[in-house]
């Protein structure tokens, strides 16, 4: 555990994230141009999708992949229910905001997953390629359960006036958001192309991967710390929950992963997916479906507290738990 934690804190990927947070904390003018940050996020999703697809082309489809995908979908749908209950009871949020925040915790963070893959790889814990498909599958169910919870608890129907256009836009955002399309699309491309086809594009999507991840995490560090600094809606109760959720959800993910017989690396990856909170796909869906929900709460919790916690501590803790339960 000690050496694993140490290797996490000497990884350039993590150190660039810390640099971004520190730069924002001291109000440095450092910033990454927005179109470049967006391009990097697209690159990372394509790279991880391609690599996952290539790995599946090598190993073939199996019962493990199906059970992991089913487990991921069920966890993503189920997690928001108890998260919402805790947010209402301990966080003292109204049903609308509790539902919106819960959707973020049931869904996943691609960047947390990518960082975990790098850390697990460095610890000789390979993650099965199909976990990328699990990642994509886990993006959406939580949005549906979050919306169910929020709308069920809303006293009035104000703002849920989903007319034809609004409903179409929401469905498109939920099922065809950019993350899902890129991850599934590049996963299929990787599976079709296989190792031979991937060799042609490997210099771009493999060799440069870690460098781009460093740059992207620098930007995410800046973003996370700036948002936290400017947040006016976060109470100490919500901050506590934003640290507690990844521990609780991550433990659940590890238990389920070990229970369905995944390899240790994949058990840890499922734990990390459950521990992570979305800040790419879900906020956009929430702005459309629940515009009255306070974006200052769900983004500050998922992006400014849970994401840094997972990058700095959560991934190492979940990896340790996965080793303890599934063996190394």
């Amino acid at each position, binding site marked *: 555990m000690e050496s694993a934690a140490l290797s996490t804190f000497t990884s350039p990927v993590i150190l660039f994230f810390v640099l971004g947070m520190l730069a924002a904390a001291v109000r440095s003018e450092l910033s990454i141009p927005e*179109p470049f940050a967006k391009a990097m*996020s697209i690159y990372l999703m394509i790279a991880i999708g391609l690599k996952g697809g290539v790995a599946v082309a090598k190993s073939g489809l199996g019962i493990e992949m199906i059970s992991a995908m089913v487990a991921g979908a069920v966890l993503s749908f189920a997690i928001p229910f108890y998260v919402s209950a805790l947010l209402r009871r301990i966080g003292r949020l109204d049903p609308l905001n509790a539902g919106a925040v819960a959707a973020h915790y049931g869904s996943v963070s691609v960047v947390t997953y990518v960082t975990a893959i790098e850390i697990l790889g460095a610890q000789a814990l390979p993650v099965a390629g199909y976990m990328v498909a699990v990642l994509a599958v886990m993006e959406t169910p939580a949005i549906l359960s979050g919306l169910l919870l929020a709308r069920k608890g809303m006293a009035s129907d104000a*703002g849920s*006036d989903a007319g034809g256009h*609004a409903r179409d836009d929401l469905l498109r955002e939920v099922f065809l958001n950019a993350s899902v399309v890129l991850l599934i699309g590049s996963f299929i491309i990787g599976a079709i192309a296989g190792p031979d086809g991937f060799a042609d594009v490997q210099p771009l999507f493999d060799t440069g991967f870690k460098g781009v991840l460093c740059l992207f995490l620098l930007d995410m560090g800046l973003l996370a710390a700036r948002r936290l600094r400017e947040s006016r809606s976060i109470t100490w109760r919500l901050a506590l929950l934003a640290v507690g959720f990844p521990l609780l959800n991550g433990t659940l993910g590890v238990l389920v992963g070990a229970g369905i017989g995944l390899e240790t690396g994949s058990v840890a990856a499922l734990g990390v997916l459950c521990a992570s909170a979305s800040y790419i796909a879900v*906020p956009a*869906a929430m702005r459309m479906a629940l*515009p009255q929900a306070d974006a*200052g709460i769900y983004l500050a919790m998922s992006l400014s507290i849970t994401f840094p916690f997972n990058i700095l501590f959560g991934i190492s803790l979940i990896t340790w738990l996965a080793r303890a339960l599934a063996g190394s």
Partner: protein
Amino acid sequence: MVETVLRKRIEILADSPLVRRVTAAIDAVGITGWTILPVSAGKGREGLWHEEHVTGTDKALVLTVASLDKAAALADALAPILTTHGLLLTMWDVEVIRGNRF
């Protein structure tokens, strides 16, 4: 001198995910054109906001020019969701050439 006519210039500031909803409302009242302008940062009742393409919480400005009756119809269509959806709608009189186009 070129003849000009009076029309309404309407600006709507909206979160990027809601822009399609706004343009659909513009189309629905029969206004033929609109333009989407990027905006970089600002401050409102909920505090500071920045251009954040990654989280999708950035905003955009939808600009359109319309006749008085169509502008009023658009304001009526968007009024119920201005507060709930955090939109900012402003309009003012402008003189345009080729008034038949608006």
